């Protein structure tokens, strides 16, 4: 009796291990199948991107915030693998790259918050940032325009808002269909706003 119970228990464990291994292998296969399609995005040319420094507009945005948004943007855009290379402002290599887009970011709204206020009250003290991002070609044609928010409501320092913002901008660029519109605009050159998209990302 005891031995049969033991055997059934062993069988159950072995079965669950087998199922887990099989599922993980299948998932890995799916990931491997998805990966290559994300790289080229269907379009022939793969663009490079140059990120410009953050324009604070008329707002009193701390310089640390501007730098943090800029650096986080570079990191997050690199992670998307959407661009052949992501360059910094002033990089001399940009002049040698034929298919180059420029990312311009202007801060349109900023609400300074307080980590202590967030910790004490939970509902107030949020740091909120709203920026307008534009993907522009060398000729000045806007291929993508979006307004993106980055906030920190509960946990984390105020600078975490810049990280969230950069991640949202990268997500907005990744999810947009700017490459298709750019290809169409190249085929049939019309006015400068032909490839313009406006999207709101939260």
């Amino acid at each position, binding site marked *: 009796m005891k031995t049969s119970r033991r055997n059934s228990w062993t069988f159950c464990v072995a079965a669950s291990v087998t199922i887990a291994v099989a599922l993980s292998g299948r998932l890995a296969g799916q990931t491997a199948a998805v990966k290559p399609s994300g790289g080229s995005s269907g379009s022939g040319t793969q663009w490079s991107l140059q990120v410009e420094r953050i324009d604070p507009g008329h707002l009193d945005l701390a310089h640390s915030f501007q730098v*943090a948004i800029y*650096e986080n943007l570079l990191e997050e855009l690199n992670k998307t693998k959407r661009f052949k290379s992501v360059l910094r402002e002033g990089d001399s290599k940009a002049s040698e790259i034929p298919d180059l887009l420029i990312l311009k970011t202007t801060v349109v709204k900023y*609400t300074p918050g307080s980590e202590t206020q967030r910790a004490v009250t939970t509902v107030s003290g949020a740091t909120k940032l709203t920026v307008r991002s534009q993907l522009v070609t060398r000729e000045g044609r806007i291929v993508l325009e979006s307004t993106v928010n980055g906030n920190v409501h509960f946990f984390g320092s105020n600078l975490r808002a810049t990280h969230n913002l950069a991640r949202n901008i990268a997500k907005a660029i990744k999810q947009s269909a700017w490459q298709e519109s750019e290809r169409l605009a190249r085929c049939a050159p019309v006015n400068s706003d032909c490839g313009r998209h406006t999207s709101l990302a939260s």
Partner: protein
Amino acid sequence: MYCLFVLRNDKSGCFGGRALISLWALLLCSGIGALAQSAAPPLNANAPFSIRATHVLGLPNTKNNCNGMLSIQNNALRFQKCGNPDAQVNIASVRALFLGEESKQVGGLPMKLGKAAAPYGGGRVVSLFAHKKYDTLTLDYVDSDGGVHGAIFEVTKGQGELVRNELVARGVSSSSGEDQATKQSTSEVTHEDK
């Protein structure tokens, strides 16, 4: 009676003399102090300078939010985490320097969990006192290709000024306007699209 008066006069004269001497000594001491302050030696551009700092972001090959030593040696700004090779920025490549002030909660995750577990909202009361002000040092520098980089460091309050002075003494141009402190404010600043 006369003798007594004279004696008293002598005593008061002696007391006045002592007071004068003490006053003179006090003035002399304060004068020497002032002289010592004004004649303080200027910052030696070659002397090594080192303080504890937290690298928030920006330096190549360095983890974000890691603690280490920020030092200035041989015209290079170095950040070294214990045991790791140091990241360095040539001071000549630093374009601008900004000093700011921030406040953050101390204690990290253990403190956060403790505050969450405290009954009757006791954690909130702890949060009121468990915060610390620190200076943020923001650098703009360029790499060999001309690309603009930014780096942010956190240092103990008051030490940001020292680092800035050191860097300015080595030829870095500090921004005219200080970095605005992100102080607690409920007002919302809006810049409408044109």
